[in-house]
């Protein structure tokens, strides 16, 4: 049972996406009185609109991600639709070489990856065709259903006494004497002893007035989903420039390809349009899985995600104000969320991450970033005409 959301909490988490919800759940597991505030409905932004992958070898949280996912359904008490393992395969020689490099990198980290020949690929992915040039089989990782996972975090949090205030947008961080004392919302002020900001693209605007600079650029990314196909032995099958999965229901859900930078203000995106890019995605799914080419595309969607200037996360407890922790996963947040929440809870409770070195994810690395970094990189809304002109240069 979720308690009243009219009063403050020991820890307030702003942002009911996977990162914020996982952090709140970890805090509640430690017995902390925690309140999550979301501007709308939990998981409504990128957390509920992504590929569901859980194999992030680049991250310092990778080992914890791998340790936790097989346990999550049990720990949360609700299904996340997690399925183990991943097959990535190619239809060009160039991509096979690329995937084999990735495999070597994962082996270096101590994880098993098998190289697959085309016949083996087709055993794992019967919808693949005779265009397969080779692939790799990750004996770790996997994928889950983002929408179900978001809800599982929320319910698990409530089961532990944590509270969630939906339709309650944090509009201002309140400070006094160099410390955060709470947040303001249209529903009133909420006091807290510690504040966690995990508000996705909106985090930058929320933090700026308290003198914290978190440079972010927001962009829209798209996915498509088909009607169900017979279940393949491994759900996490992708490649050919796509990320995605076969859901347990059998639908093929894939994304990839170019993103669109867009300005997002403190209130968040007002639209999340998907576009004719669905045709380019459809093409690549049909190429990857010719046995599925006849399947109908029944939906597309877009999520708005933020990136930092180097594309890497910020997970940091600040020096000033000292009771403020910020987190952005820089567009790669879903799969890592079980571990991210753990790290954030550690920062709040212990002042440091107890299970991994995350020092390189500190916010300090951006202190000298120029004010116009987005324009310099071209990470701003760009029209068709502007792009044509730029490419012609």
């Amino acid at each position: 049972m979720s308690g009243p959301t009219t009063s403050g909490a020991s820890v307030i988490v702003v942002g009911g996406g996977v990162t914020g919800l996982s952090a709140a759940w970890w805090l509640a597991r430690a017995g902390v009185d925690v309140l999550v505030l979301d501007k709308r409905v939990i998981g409504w932004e990128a957390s509920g609109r992504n590929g569901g992958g859980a194999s992030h070898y680049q991250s310092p949280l990778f080992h914890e991600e791998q340790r936790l996912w097989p346990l999550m359904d049990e720990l949360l008490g609700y299904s996340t639709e997690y399925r183990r393992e991943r097959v990535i395969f190619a239809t060009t020689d160039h991509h096979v070489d690329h995937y084999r490099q990735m495999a070597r990198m994962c082996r270096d980290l101590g994880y098993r990856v098998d190289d697959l020949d085309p016949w083996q690929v087709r055993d794992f992915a019967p919808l693949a065709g005779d265009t397969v040039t080779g692939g790799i089989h990750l004996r770790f990782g996997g994928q889950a259903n983002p929408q179900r996972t978001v809800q599982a975090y929320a319910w698990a949090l409530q089961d532990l006494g944590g509270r969630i205030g939906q339709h309650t947008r944090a509009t201002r961080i309140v400070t006094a004497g160099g410390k955060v004392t709470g947040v303001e919302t249209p529903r009133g002020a909420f006091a807290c002893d510690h504040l966690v900001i995990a508000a996705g693209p909106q985090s930058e605007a929320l933090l700026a007035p308290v003198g914290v600079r978190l440079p972010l650029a927001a962009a829209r990314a798209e996915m498509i989903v088909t009607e169900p196909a017979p279940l393949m032995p491994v759900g996490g099958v992708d490649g050919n420039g796509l990320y995605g999965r076969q859901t347990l229901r059998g639908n093929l859900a894939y994304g990839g390809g170019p993103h669109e930078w867009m300005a997002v203000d403190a209130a968040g995106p007002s639209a999340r349009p998907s576009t004719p890019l669905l045709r380019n995605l459809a093409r690549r799914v049909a190429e990857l899985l010719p046995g599925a080419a006849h399947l109908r595309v029944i939906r597309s969607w877009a999520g708005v995600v933020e990136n930092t200037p180097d594309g890497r996360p910020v997970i940091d407890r600040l020096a000033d104000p000292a009771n403020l922790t910020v987190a952005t996963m820089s567009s790669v947040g879903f799969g890592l969320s079980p571990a991210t929440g753990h790290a954030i809870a550690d920062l709040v409770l212990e002042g440091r991450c107890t299970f991994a070195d995350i020092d390189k994810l500190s916010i300090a690395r951006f202190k000298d970033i120029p004010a116009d970094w987005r324009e310099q990189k071209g990470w701003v809304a760009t029209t068709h005409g502007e792009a044509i002109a730029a490419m012609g240069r």
Partner: protein
Amino acid sequence: MTQRGFDPKAVAGKHPAPEQSVEVLVIGAGPAGTGAAIAAAKGGATVLLVDENPVDAGLIGLDTPLYWGGRYTGAVQTKARMVEQVFAANPRLEEAFEAGAEISLGVYCWGAWVGGEGLASLPGPVAGLADDERAWMVGFERLVVATGARDVAFAFQGWDQPGVMGARALCALVQTYDAFAGRRLAILGSGDLALETALFALGRRLEVAALIEVEDASRGSQALIGEVAAAGVPILTGHAPVLALGGLDGVEGLGVRALESGAQRVIACDTVVQAIAVTPVVELLDVLGARLAMQPTLGGHAPVSPDGTATSLAQVSLAGDVAGVASVPRDAVAYQQAWMRVLIATSDAGVILCQCEAVTREALLAVRQPAYLGEPSAGMAARDLGRLLEDGPANPDQIKRLTRAGMGPCQGRRCREQVALTLACATNESAERVPLAGYRAPVRPLPLKVLAAWDEAAEMSGQWDVWFGIPGQWTPYADIGTEREALHQGVLGGDMHL
């Protein structure tokens, strides 16, 4: 002054110019759309008039775009013949052609965009079209949406059999397709829609066994009630359909129950026509980002328009029933809810609401996880709609994510309104307050190989990356800040799999 950079991995500049461009694109060649096309062509504009009829037999089987209900002849399989039939069924198409409009029949419009937030990259206003072989884009200066209205379906025991269908679909199968396979109808509803449907059917030499109305009195205009009575067709008021009896070929009879006495009887019929409500076909407008609002006097969620023609988007206008169905009663949504309330009271909770995903009413209200996940956990079993509502108002999109109702190949056409009505009944809310479950392109469920951009631009292919193409994003953590970082980015670069 900042030197503005350019992100080669972003989408801007990667969409090719549309294959064709017209001044006026009209979607829907019913009377209103055809009229709009004729007027525009006579005004000297280049006009493309697109209509999806005759739709592919596979889509008819999915009750798209209308609630066809499986009561059609094999003729729908022969598309070429059907194109002639559809053309012949609308004499004004000839006039549109004479006026200079280009006419494409059997062509779907699966999406349309005019720009706006997050859409700066599009090369101008553009619509996605497709036939059963391929898809293509058409640019336009002005878009006239004349997509009409569609039937609102209601679930009762046996409604998922061939022979239970909608009133608009009946008209289309009889009139436009000449491919209706039924003979004897029972009609649900007693408003003008139901009465007109009965008179239409009688005029086409079909038998009408009865009209069934859950309310205590007939709803329609006295004149129409008189005409139906004069034809000897009974209107069973205070009755609910409780069971569509069927065999191999679908419906063979309809069991109805008198609500007061509980007396039951069977009406012999091969078709049950749901003529309780129609609602504007707003899916394309939702994709466009046009403002929609619940407007009961217009039949449900309808475009916000000052004059029945303009939309919130300068380039997009309306024609015909999509702007609101003229004949619906003022309390159309309350009437739908009255029907739903009775059907909930008279039918088993195990009745299927979402046919595609086999979601029952009971499962919807329990917010039950789908069957493929097996037995729910203790925590899951303790969750239901009531507890979900403690966290915020009922939102069909959220319920959809959890139960899968509306997530199937028919894209929610059979259950979207029913889910909203059921949620409203369960929470003692007015259905007018339940938000619209959002629509997304493609608004027609078309195959991957048909939608595929086999001819995509070189700019798209050449810069395609799995994710953002930020090389440093995938550097192994241990390598960050070491000499291996550059090495790593050189070897692997972007195109890393998340």
